[in-house]
């Protein structure tokens, strides 16, 4: 029986009640009142804090202590009560005051919790698990009186913790018993070494974070930090809460995927699903080879930049739209915008479905291209960096002097990540008077990115001389990215975008 399921109970800690949890730190990142937003913060930024495992443990201990004083229950029992109530302490206190016995019972505690756990030798005892009845055998039982030998109890706990990853809600091994094994009992039964090797304490801390809406573990592999952010699930159609962990990982607090600004989580979910469903249709598009639009010789892409020059005929064109490159960068040229076919073209069903596929492919193509290009950019950078290190040792250039390459590469990665998601965003965008501004911002960022990306294809000996230019281009890229994100987030917050799907 999971307590989330017994609906008719009068004790209700269900998360989706309309009573919102108040955050202790009052550290709410995104407030619905515009006037409360600090002027210096950009519209796409949210407040958040990164916590170490020690911080989390401290927070947890502090709350247990506080509530323990109020309820007059020992710390261990209070911890169980708080975990049972999913750390909603106001509600716990309220319910506890009202119907103490029921709350204690449902949390897996009886009324008498003050007695410290201890091992006992009982004459004539036989353990129901192993059937051992040796004299002088140590046994253990909680207040439910389901008594087993220490070895069995211990083995049971280790299995629950180690194999099943449980900690906060381990039940008594007795048949059908709901009594929760508190951490004091666990400590009594398991040695410190065993507790450490099972990572019991860590698992307990995990449930604290898992139970709190304003806390999430950083999803980066091996990262131990948790992030505290006040953005709520119900706000995710109005804000994209990207947070930055101390380990360097940027992720969305709403869905824990990699940063996907400016696209809100509901659209991200939809888009990824669509890409998965349509992957076969779209696969041929993102292939790495194409033909030169002039001489038809096969061209392979080896860098991230979209400015292509055919080796054979020297024709310069754009990899994305296959249009002439010289026309890019002029104000009337739109590589990023999908031109809707005029109404009478798309009259019959077949033409309509073709048009809708074409439209999807337009956006998917660009989305996938930025993803692919980010990888190629990185490859090129790594090669360049290697060459630079060689150059450094032969020419005596210092580490600081080559740092600009690293900065440029990082900016490029970040901008491509943003650009990639602008295409998913644009796919769901219904045209209105704001769309054009968005497309302009997108085009400006794209041009800035291509310009910077192109520089990585220069030979190493040229690069040292291009340092200032590269730094300028890096700054410009970052600036364009902020402009795009700020504008998009501002309009998202104010509900100015019209989407062609529901944001749910």
């Amino acid at each position, binding site marked *: 029986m999971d307590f989330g399921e017994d609906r008719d109970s009068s004790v209700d800690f269900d998360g989706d009640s309309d009573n919102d949890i108040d955050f202790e730190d009052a550290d709410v990142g995104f407030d619905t009142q515009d006037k409360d937003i600090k002027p210096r913060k950009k519209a796409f930024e949210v407040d958040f804090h990164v916590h170490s495992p020690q911080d989390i443990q401290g927070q947890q201990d502090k709350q247990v202590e506080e509530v323990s004083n109020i309820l007059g229950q020992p710390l261990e029992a209070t911890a169980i009560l708080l975990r049972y109530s999913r750390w909603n302490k106001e509600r716990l206190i309220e319910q506890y005051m009202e119907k103490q016995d029921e709350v204690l019972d449902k949390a897996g505690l009886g009324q008498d919790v003050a007695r410290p756990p201890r091992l006992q030798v009982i004459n004539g005892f036989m353990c129901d*698990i192993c*059937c*051992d009845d040796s004299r002088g055998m140590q046994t253990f039982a909680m207040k439910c009186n389901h008594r087993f030998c220490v070895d069995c109890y211990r083995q*049971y706990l280790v*299995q629950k913790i180690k194999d099943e990853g449980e900690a906060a809600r381990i*039940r008594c*091994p*007795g048949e059908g018993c709901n009594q929760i094994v508190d951490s004091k009992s666990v400590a009594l039964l398991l040695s410190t070494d065993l507790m450490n090797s099972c990572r019991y304490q860590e698992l307990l801390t995990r449930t604290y974070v898992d139970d709190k809406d304003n806390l999430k573990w950083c999803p980066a592999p091996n990262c131990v930090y948790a992030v505290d952010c006040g953005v709520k699930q119900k706000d995710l159609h109005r804000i994209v809460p990207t947070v930055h962990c101390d380990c360097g990982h940027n992720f969305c607090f709403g869905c824990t995927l990699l940063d996907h600004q400016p696209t809100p989580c509901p659209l991200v979910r939809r888009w990824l699903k669509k890409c998965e469903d349509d992957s076969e249709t779209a696969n041929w598009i993102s292939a790495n080879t194409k033909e030169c639009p002039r001489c038809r010789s096969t061209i392979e892409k080896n860098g991230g930049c979209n400015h292509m020059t055919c080796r054979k005929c020297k024709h310069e064109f754009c990899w994305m739209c296959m249009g002439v490159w010289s026309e890019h960068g002029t104000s009337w040229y739109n590589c990023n915008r999908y031109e809707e076919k005029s109404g009478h073209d798309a009259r019959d069903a077949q033409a309509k479905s073709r048009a809708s596929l074409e439209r999807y492919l337009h956006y998917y193509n660009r989305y996938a291209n930025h993803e692919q290009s980010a990888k190629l950019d990185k490859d090129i950078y790594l090669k360049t960096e290697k060459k630079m290190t060689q150059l450094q040792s032969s020419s005596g250039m210092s580490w600081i002097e080559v740092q600009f390459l690293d900065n440029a590469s990082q900016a490029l990665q970040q901008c491509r990540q943003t650009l990639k998601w602008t295409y998913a965003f644009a796919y769901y965008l219904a045209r209105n008077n704001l769309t054009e501004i968005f497309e302009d911002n997108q085009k400006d960022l794209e041009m800035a990115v291509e310009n910077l990306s192109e520089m990585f294809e220069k030979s190493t000996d040229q690069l040292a001389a291009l340092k200032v230019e590269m730094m300028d281009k890096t700054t410009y890229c970052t600036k364009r990215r902020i402009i795009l994100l700020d504008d998009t987030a501002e309009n998202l917050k104010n509900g100015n975008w019209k989407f062609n799907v529901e944001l749910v």
Partner: protein
Amino acid sequence: MTSSSAASRKALSKIASNRLQKELVEWQVNPPVGFKHKVTDNLQRWVIEVNGAPGTLYANETYQLQVDFPEHYPMEAPQVIFLPPAPLHPHIYSNGHICLDILYDSWSPAMTVSSVCISILSMLSSSTVKQRPEDNDRYVKNCRNGRSPKETRWWFHDDKV
């Protein structure tokens, strides 16, 4: 896919065989009503005859349960299935797998073969229709290559059992 069947083939631990011997003795003295253990020399696999309780949909019907014990019984749950033909029941699949929480998530090492049998009989007795689970065909198809019910992530049909 074969991990659990391989695990159940591992010899019983000392604790497991001690406990099973005790259970067997206890069973012989005091068998659960409606069940008959078909005695073999294989302690690790029990075949038990079930008689539908009088006055229920399964009255006068006899089925067979096969109970396989893992190395670390009773810390680990036994694998319990109906041998063909399995009774028609909304929580019993045509391949004999049983959707009953105590056999999986809610297993407790203090339970015994006897208590499992009683739960299964009460599950049969409380049934009001003789039919297969709704997802029977899909589930059975997924189990074709000898998958054990213990590898299934069960979504229990009824949280009252």
